[in-house]
């Protein structure tokens, strides 16, 4: 089977390759990828090349397909897995396999599997670790976004709190407590807000900060304080640039200015981490969600409070299979709307420039359909592009019917009508 895939050969060396996939073995599965959403981790990977923790050391000779948030169709199942998986079904993948303690993951460590490809061979360990999940939804893009949603679900599960006189940690956020999400209106931040106001273990106070008014306004429209209130969460959005003393202001949004039980940091920015530290309550849990590129990334952390006030730190990078199942379930129940994450659409030929320039491209998730050819295009520009291109005109019509959001209908139309990749 021929495939077309974006592979990494070293630092900032991404190539769109055509190559022949090996025939599948008895314990492997052949699949067609339809959609892949681009994660900041892939940008970091592109930037770090062989120095990345999940990268094979001989990446120059053994290039990895990038992209790990993907969804598609199962084409052919090796005999070992025939009773569990069937050709024709949709699938998504939980990339953090943890196979025998290895960090290897699809999208980082394999030549023949990754999201930015037309066809892939799913290796045995993915099934072995129960990381190949059947997806029964209509929209491929939602399947792709299950992975980022699972990272979000998982990160909340990794929080913990302590109890006086006990050494058993209570896992999860403080139920009914105070939570802050700093730099929280990027795509992952929005997913975090969506999850935490709709899940089963909620805070009572949620404060979301950013420094960009436009992004804050979009967030407040998509995930409104009213919607949060219906779910018992008092949600407020704060532009920390517009207040004289952000720390005092954030504290004032908690009862008796007591501070926050759970603080999540969604940007690997030193002052933001330090701000998080300063607003922690006793036994406060700081979750450093955003992984930095710099292995020497440090921030001042108050160790007096570590000693006397039990403040503590968690960091997660990726959810587990349970988190993916939870996300799939919540999506199925309509509790999570991953389309709010999507701001750009492109084809497989848009992957390389998009990945390499990701931090400089505004907006939320960049969604790639791997069988089409299309430059990365902001959804907000469809109408304008539609003046000269009927495809975009029709897409703009569909998007407008869905409050400006991407949808299964838009996806279907795009897959039928867009130019196929050569």
């Amino acid at each position, binding site marked *: 089977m021929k495939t077309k895939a974006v592979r990494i050969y070293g630092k900032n060396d991404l190539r769109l390759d055509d190559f022949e996939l090996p025939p599948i073995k008895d314990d492997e599965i052949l699949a067609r990828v339809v959609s892949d959403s681009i994660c900041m981790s892939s940008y970091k990977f592109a930037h770090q090349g062989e120095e990345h923790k999940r990268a094979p050391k001989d990446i120059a000779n053994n290039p990895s397909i990038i992209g790990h948030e993907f969804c598609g169709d199962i084409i052919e199942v090796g005999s070992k897995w025939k009773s569990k998986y069937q050709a024709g079904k949709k699938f998504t993948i939980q990339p*953090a396999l943890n196979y025998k303690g290895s960090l290897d993951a699809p999208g980082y460590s394999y030549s023949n599997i990754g999201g930015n490809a037309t066809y892939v061979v799913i290796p045995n360990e993915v099934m072995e670790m129960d990381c190949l999940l059947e997806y029964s939804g209509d929209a491929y893009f939602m399947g792709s976004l299950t992975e980022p949603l699972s990272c979000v679900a*998982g990160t909340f599960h990794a929080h913990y709190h302590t109890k*006086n006189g006990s*050494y058993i940690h209570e896992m999860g956020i403080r139920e009914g407590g105070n939570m802050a999400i700093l730099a929280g209106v990027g795509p992952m931040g929005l997913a975090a807000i969506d999850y935490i106001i709709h899940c089963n273990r909620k805070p009572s106070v949620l404060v979301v900060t950013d420094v960009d008014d436009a992004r804050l306004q979009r967030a407040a429209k998509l995930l409104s304080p009213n919607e949060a209130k219906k779910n018992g969460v008092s949600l407020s959005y704060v532009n920390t640039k517009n207040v004289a003393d952000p720390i005092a202001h954030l504290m004032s949004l908690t009862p008796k200015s007591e501070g926050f039980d759970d603080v999540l940091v969604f940007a690997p920015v030193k002052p933001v981490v330090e701000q998080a530290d300063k607003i922690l309550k006793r036994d406060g849990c700081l979750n450093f969600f955003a992984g930095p590129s710099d292995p020497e990334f*440090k921030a001042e952390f108050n*160790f*007096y409070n570590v*000693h*006397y006030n039990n403040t503590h730190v968690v960091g997660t990078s990726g959810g587990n299979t349970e988190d993916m199942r939870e996300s799939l379930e919540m999506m199925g129940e309509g509790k999570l709307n991953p389309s709010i994450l999507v701001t750009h659409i492109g084809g497989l030929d848009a992957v390389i420039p998009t990945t390499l320039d990701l931090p400089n491209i505004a907006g939320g998730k960049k969604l790639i359909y791997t069988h089409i050819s299309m430059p990365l295009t902001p959804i907000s520009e469809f109408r304008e592009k539609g003046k000269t291109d009927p495809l975009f005109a029709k897409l703009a019509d569909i998007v407008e019917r869905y409050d400006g959001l991407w949808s299964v209908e838009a996806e279907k139309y795009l897959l039928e009508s867009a130019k196929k990749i050569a």
Partner: protein
Amino acid sequence: MIQKIQDAPLTRALRLYGEGDLRLEDFSLPQLNPSDVLVRIFCDSVCMSTYKLLNQGDRHKRVIANLAKQPIIVGHEFCGEIVAVGTDRKEEFHPGQKFIALPVRKDGAIEAPGYSYEYIGGASTLGVFHSDLIDNGCFLPFQGSAFFLGALTEPYACVIGAFKANYHCQRGSYQHQMGIRPGGLCALLAGSGPMGLAAIDYAINGDTTPSVLVVSSRNREKLARAMRLFPPEEAEKKGITLHYVIGDTVEAERQLLQICEGQGFDDIFIFAPDKALVESADRLLGQDGCLNFFAGPSDAKFSVNFNFYKAHYSGTHLVGTSGGSGEDVAEAIRLMELGRIRPEVLVTHIGGLSSAADSVRNLPNLPGGKKLHYTQIDLPLIAIDELEALASDDSPNQKLYKALAECVSQHAGLWNAEAEKILLSHLGKL
């Protein structure tokens, strides 16, 4: 204010009136309420936390009242005997019973004996445990053979609690495995002080042991003593490779890295509130490494440049404890009774109540380990290893020192229950 009540017992106690202001005073205790217990304190060991308390005065977080108006009695590692029991507690306790104090309240409130109370603290002759402290687990009956062992259960409980508070993660699961990594690599930085010794003792003789234990210190003398007390050959018998590393932070880090072959440590305990040391520990943490900041700093703004890249990608994490729980005390007592841990090795000096104030004031500059103060007697602070020399002086205590020196030499140069008995039998003769 101290109420003057007729027939109220008189105590002599070391009280803190504010930053740097310690006074040894006689005053009356309040009359016993029906659910209170009156105690006689025999032994109080001095903790670095009390030195910090002295230097912070009202700023200390455990100080609640205005010290100038309501001074508190210092000392939180103490043991003694019950003198009188309020009518409501006759079933629970009886006079003559030994007790120990625990400076951690079950309800999580910040107040603690030795920091926050007018009528109870270690550096005193008599004190009153109010009902609320008893109900919060700060007063525990004790059946050990010596008062000093009772006093030292608290520092051991702190160490036990710290070891239990460490945790490790499993990839793909959100359940924490509490405690140090069994068979892992463990480092005790600046670990030659008394708490460091207790930690070495517990790391080797507790229920969960590492496979490699490294103790670093910049104090050659203290480290040499630690090595004598806990020789690597003895640890080897328990399957633990024990290393002692001498040198400043940079040199120690170099050696520690060599020992772990660059892989980093699973558990690191820091026994001095020193920034460079914490940053060094951060660099020494391995995958899923747990950094326990054992020593509490005085400065509420004490901050350290912590590597969040490692926190995110390698799961390195932080734990801080300040004090053990009732269960930790129970474990300390169990291990003592089994003879598995040896609190006596911590002790290097003994004194009476009158010398306690100077011990607190000068603690960071005093040589050796734990200073025990026997509050019922009057004795200058003397080093145990100088008893013999003192016995040959023409001092009024010559006979006592001679008896003590003999007893100590029969116990490998260490303080012991018999020595304590000899000392206390001279009560009133000093």
